[in-house]
């Protein structure tokens, strides 16, 4: 069969010593970079750019791709250990992963994250191999109206994100939406909430918000009382997940992979949204939703699977349409172009060794990552036994360096400090940070697409229901709304 012969070609290419080495170098570097907050694949690939001039195309792209999806593996490490997201998409893993670490279950959390990511990575790669071009074409059917409907659905579902007070939780979502507004408005070119400060014209960066809200707030929370607060309370029971853990994590992993693969193909939606979406889904369908936020392993497995699946399928627009959906993809595309590889719909046929070699190496890369990350679990868990008074200044230091590396601008650090103060106050007042982050990620996408859809439809709101895909998501939104409001309404009726 065609597929098998292509795969054979691909594996033949990928298993050469040179390509294996570059694959390993890429994923190892990616993991390291993913662990460090702020420093991400974009900066790293930019640094390595000149090196790719002296490499042939195939090992170059294998290495760069390895850095990209390897970073997703590493991103969850700091999320779980110290409540600090290494990558945008790892923010959701903080919610339950960090709680697991505090209960002495950092080992199972880390291992589950690695295994879920491995499963998702393999499935994602399989999807590219089997249906890459089809998925690429299919993604083109998603226009402004469809994106609006999806974002609206996510917004309505965001009520599920809150553990405690629903009203304050939703207020945090709105606050997040507002923070996302800062910057240039795509549709009009106007800079909003920028106070004449040029650095704010491009908006407030994710790293700034995540570090301030999650890391700084958590650290101050741990230091605030005059008595020592034990940060990591539970005894470390085991490094590996129990059978029970694996059973609990199995289906969430599968569902997370599906959600992640879906969002990954849509250019612009991305791994972050997919991890939020799958978390909300898992919490909603769980038998005991109150476990979420207190260290539920599903809250680690599903988002990790989602962001890895999305990281793989994100390659589809680039490989099959020749269009980079994000800056990182653009860099990789640039590297390929400089090699003389003209990417576009024909790349599969014109350069099969490149295409299939890359796919085969993605599998190998995912495998290498699991082998790399599982033994490290023991090392990371040991790290948590370091006295907190040594740990937290180091965390702050890495946050600072990471933040600076994103934009090379001291302003980002001042802003981060400010958000840290706000974050601490909010967390102290029992307003949860995760909904804010969701609003921050969601807001720009929602507004941009809503206005664009209305602009294209010349102000006609029925467009959301006349287009089939959009209509489907709008109906789903209404259903979710009804499902959420109904118990409350029933309760009120019974109460009167």
């Amino acid at each position, binding site marked *: 069969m065609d597929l098998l012969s292509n795969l054979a070609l691909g594996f033949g290419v990928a298993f050469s010593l040179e390509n294996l080495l570059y694959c390993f170098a890429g994923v190892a570097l990616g993991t390291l*970079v993913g662990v*460090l907050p702020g*420093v991400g694949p974009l*900066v790293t690939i930019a*640094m390595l750019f000149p090196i790719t001039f002296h490499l042939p195309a195939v090992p170059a792209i294998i290495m760069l791709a390895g850095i990209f999806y390897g970073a997703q593996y590493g991103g969850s490490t700091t999320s779980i250990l110290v409540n600090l997201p290494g990558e945008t998409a790892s923010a959701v893993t903080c919610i339950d992963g960090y709680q697991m670490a505090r209960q002495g279950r950092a080992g199972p959390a880390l291992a589950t994250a690695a295994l879920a990511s491995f499963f998702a990575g393999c499935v994602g790669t399989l999807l590219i191999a089997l249906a890459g071009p089809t998925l690429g074409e299919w993604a083109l059917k998603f226009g402004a109206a469809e994106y609006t409907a999806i974002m609206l659905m996510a917004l309505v579902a965001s009520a599920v994100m809150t553990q405690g007070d629903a*009203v*304050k939780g*939703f*207020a945090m979502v*709105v*606050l997040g*939406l*507002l923070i996302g*507004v800062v910057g240039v*408005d795509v549709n*009009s070119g106007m800079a*909003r*909430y920028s106070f004449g400060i040029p650095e704010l014209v491009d908006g407030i960066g994710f790293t700034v918000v995540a570090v301030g809200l999650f890391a*700084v707030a958590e*650290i*101050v*929370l741990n*230091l*605030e*009382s005059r008595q*020592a607060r034990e940060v990591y309370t539970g005894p470390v029971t085991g490094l590996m997940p129990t059978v029970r853990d694996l059973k609990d994590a199995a289906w969430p992993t599968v569902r997370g992979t599906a959600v992640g693969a879906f969002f990954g193909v849509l250019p612009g939606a991305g791994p972050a949204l997919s991890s939020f979406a799958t978390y909300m889904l898992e919490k909603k369908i769980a038998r005991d939703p109150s476990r979420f936020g207190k260290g539920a392993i599903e809250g680690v497995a599903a988002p990790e699977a989602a962001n890895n699946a999305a990281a793989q399928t994100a390659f589809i627009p680039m490989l099959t349409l020749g269009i980079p959906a994000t800056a990182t993809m653009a860099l990789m595309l640039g590297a390929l172009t400089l090699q003389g590889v003209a990417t576009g719909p024909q790349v599969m046929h014109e350069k099969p060794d490149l295409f299939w070699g890359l796919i085969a190496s993605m599998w190998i890369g995912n495998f290498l990552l699991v082998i790399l990350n599982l033994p490290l679990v023991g090392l990371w868990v040991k790290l948590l036994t370091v006295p*907190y*008074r*040594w740990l*937290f*200044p*180091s965390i*702050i*230091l*890495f*946050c*600072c*360096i990471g933040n*600076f590396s994103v934009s090379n601008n*001291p302003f*980002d*650090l*001042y802003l*981060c*400090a400010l958000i*840290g*103060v706000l974050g*601490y106050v*909010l967390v*102290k*007042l*029992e*307003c949860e940070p995760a909904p804010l982050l969701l609003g921050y990620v969601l807001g720009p996408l929602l*507004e941009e697409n*809503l*206005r664009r859809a*209305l602009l294209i439809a010349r*102000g*006609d*709101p029925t467009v959301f229901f006349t287009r089939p895909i959009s209509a489907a998501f709008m109906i789903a939104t209404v259903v979710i709304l009804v499902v959420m409001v109904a118990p409350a309404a029933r309760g009120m009726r019974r109460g009167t």
Partner: protein
Amino acid sequence: MKPDLRNNRDLIAGLLFVVLGGLAIILARDYPLGTTMRMGPGYFPTVLGGILLLFGAYVLARGIRSGEKVKGEWGWRPLAWITLSIVLFGYLLDRAGLVPATVVTLFVAAAAGREFRFKEVLVLAIVMTAFSVAVFSWGLKLPYPLIGGYY
């Protein structure tokens, strides 16, 4: 029952939301609103500010009624030290170089802790600085001046 307003958790939270929501609306007043079907840049922020304000008012009222306190003490001292350490890093990196910035940040951040043992912090500073230089400057080749800045 006399409402207890001091250190009232929801009162402060609600107040914060009201202020932020109100600020959002005020700051957006110069942006063209447009209509619902043809939104201008001011529409979304104004609506959001309004929603935040309403939610804030609700939380505020609820707080006055319930009188629930903020749990634990406020950690203003550690917050100040940590914030200062972040600000100092930004200020020093371009002007003094990676090494001084790292050392200062570590010391200032460590001051936020409950105990401050100078010798320990010194060792930590040396180790972490060496590690940072190795990973960031040498390993990732980020172009930061090590000692002495650009200005």
